[in-house]
């Protein structure tokens, strides 16, 4: 199970990394004749029952009102591989859209947007998580080492911040800034907000560890050898936090992915047409989509796989509950 979790995470990371190669289309490409089109089915057997190389039938709109599509079985189009810098495309010129996961309300390929959105969402979450770790490490380390007033201040402020509901704090902080911003600014802004939200927990943990380690023999030895405060802290005490920081990283990344999705869902995150998992869910959330176009909720499945992968891969032995005495 642990290995399955790691596989999931590696697969997600690889998919995000190789998005420009894997995605059949550019995330902003719109196919105006294929709004809300269902996924293109890849066939391997043709009308006569013969096996052929994978091919698709182009979709033809049957009813504009109902947005229903049907396959045009008269024109099988084979898939072409490794052409035009992409892994796979449809047809000899690659013009027929290959919509592996269907299209959204603007006629954009959901699968391509999912892959490119993974870059945005995962990238943002990683950056924010690392930033939260750095801030927490710095604040917690200093507070734990110095003790006294600095320590008290850290504990009181972090306690207060932890009582507040994170979503609302993120919302208010984001609302403080201009509501319409270019995507790269939004990226760094969200990264900063998330880092600030995630830092208190890290700081508290680091502070506790540093405080405990400060009185260990090796630290006393270093001090007696004449090491400066900085050296003792950085070289000797902070490495003890390594395990804690790793665990926190695995907790923060999925949380930040969810937070980005929440903010983008209500329009406070990335703007259109940026493809992030959150904006995709925002676009998909109409009553019609829930009923008729469920493929547009693919980002939800991706987020689930991320969280599942993390939970499987990093579930520690201490959390399993085999009780041999009572079986």
């Amino acid at each position, binding site marked *: 199970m642990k290995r399955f979790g790691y596989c999931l995470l590696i697969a997600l990371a690889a998919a995000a990394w190789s998005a420009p190669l894997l995605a059949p289309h550019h995330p902003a490409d719109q196919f105006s004749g294929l709004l809300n089109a269902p996924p293109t089915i890849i066939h391997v057997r043709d009308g006569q029952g013969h096996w052929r190389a994978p091919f698709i039938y182009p979709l033809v709109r049957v009813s504009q009102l109902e947005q229903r599509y049907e396959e045009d079985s008269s024109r099988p189009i084979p898939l072409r591989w490794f052409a035009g810098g992409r892994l796979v495309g449809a047809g000899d010129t690659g013009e027929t859209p290959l919509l592996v996961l269907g299209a959204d309300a603007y006629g954009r390929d959901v699968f391509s947007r999912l892959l490119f959105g993974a870059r945005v969402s995962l990238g943002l979450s990683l950056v924010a998580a690392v930033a939260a770790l750095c801030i927490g490490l710095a604040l917690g380390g200093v507070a734990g080492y110095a003790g006294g007033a600095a320590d008290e201040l850290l504990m009181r402020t972090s306690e207060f911040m932890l009582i507040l509901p994170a979503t609302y704090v993120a919302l208010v902080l984001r609302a403080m800034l201009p509501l319409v911003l270019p995507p790269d600014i939004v990226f760094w802004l969200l990264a900063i907000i998330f880092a600030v939200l995630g830092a208190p927990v890290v700081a508290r943990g680091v502070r506790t560890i540093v405080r405990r380690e400060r009185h260990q023999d090796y630290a006393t030895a270093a001090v007696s050898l004449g090491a400066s405060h900085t050296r003792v802290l950085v070289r000797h005490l902070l490495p003890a936090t390594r395990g804690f920081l790793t665990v926190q990283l695995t907790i923060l990344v999925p949380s930040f992915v969810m937070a980005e999705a929440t903010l983008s869902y209500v329009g406070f995150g990335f703007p259109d047409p940026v493809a992030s998992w959150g904006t995709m869910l925002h676009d998909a959330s109409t009553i019609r989509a829930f*009923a008729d176009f469920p493929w547009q909720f693919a980002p939800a499945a991706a987020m689930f796989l991320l969280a599942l992968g993390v939970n499987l891969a990093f579930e520690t032995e201490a959390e399993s*509950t085999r009780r041999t005495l009572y079986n």
Partner: protein
Amino acid sequence: MSALVVRRVAFALFLVFAVSSAAVVLTHLAPGDFATAQFGQGVGPEAMQQARSRYGLDKPLGVQYRDWLIQAIRLDFGRSLVYDRPVAELVPERLANTALLAVSALLLATVLGLPLGIVAATRGGVVSHLIRGVSLLLLSTPPLLTSLFLVLIAAQTGWLPAGGMRSVTPGSASSVTDVLLHMIVPVAALGLPLAAMLERLQARTLAEVLEQPFVLAALARGASRTRVIWRDGLRASLGPVAAMYGLLAASLLSGSFVVEMITAWPGLGRLVLDALMARDVYLVAGGATAGAVFLAVGTLCSDLAVAVGDQRARDRQ
């Protein structure tokens, strides 16, 4: 004991004050204000100036804050700029809806999570693995995902209403049943991940307790297994689980925001969001105060429960 209560109540008051003040200040610090948000670029400077002074938005921040504070202490939270109704009319109903959602979800989570956690810790084999597996799956679906998934199912199957709090068609079932039916999806969306978390916590804590020497001693003395688990094991595991409840108020509030958005449940979240977008200072402040009250009451209740339950905590205070 009374010193603990006094201290907690004082902290609760401070929390409400700090949060609502912060909301007022932050909304003022945001670029633009209600007048600019409403009328945008289409009006001349004099008209804009008139609009701003009509709403009292052209006074300096300190003055506006002081005016708001004086009124708020008298529990007059002003009029909403967007809805032109007293904030004290708009907020309580929404807060009640959110509280209904949050408390119901907490109940669901407790009723599902704690017993299953006990079962998982005391029975081995398939049952324990099954519970653990389901919990793992639910832990991987925070309220955002569960609400999307449940609304998806509701919309596809038509078994349950897919959103809102009440049906719009006249002549629907009696009002209470109607609301209950509409509550199923949001409460499940908020409560199921929480149930999984509580189940894991309970299972872990109970398992650790049952490893203690006193449990082995009790069994050796001839106490029945059932009695040992339900009397001694549970009481010892009560502490960490009850302590967790104190932290739940914030995550319930956070989670309810997402659930309200996705299932169109008319709670505090939507109100505050709209107010933030429109830079409606009074409504934002009122909403923030309401949220802070909810948080304060929640943490206060759980702190008192922990203090009552845990003799050591009481002695320490």
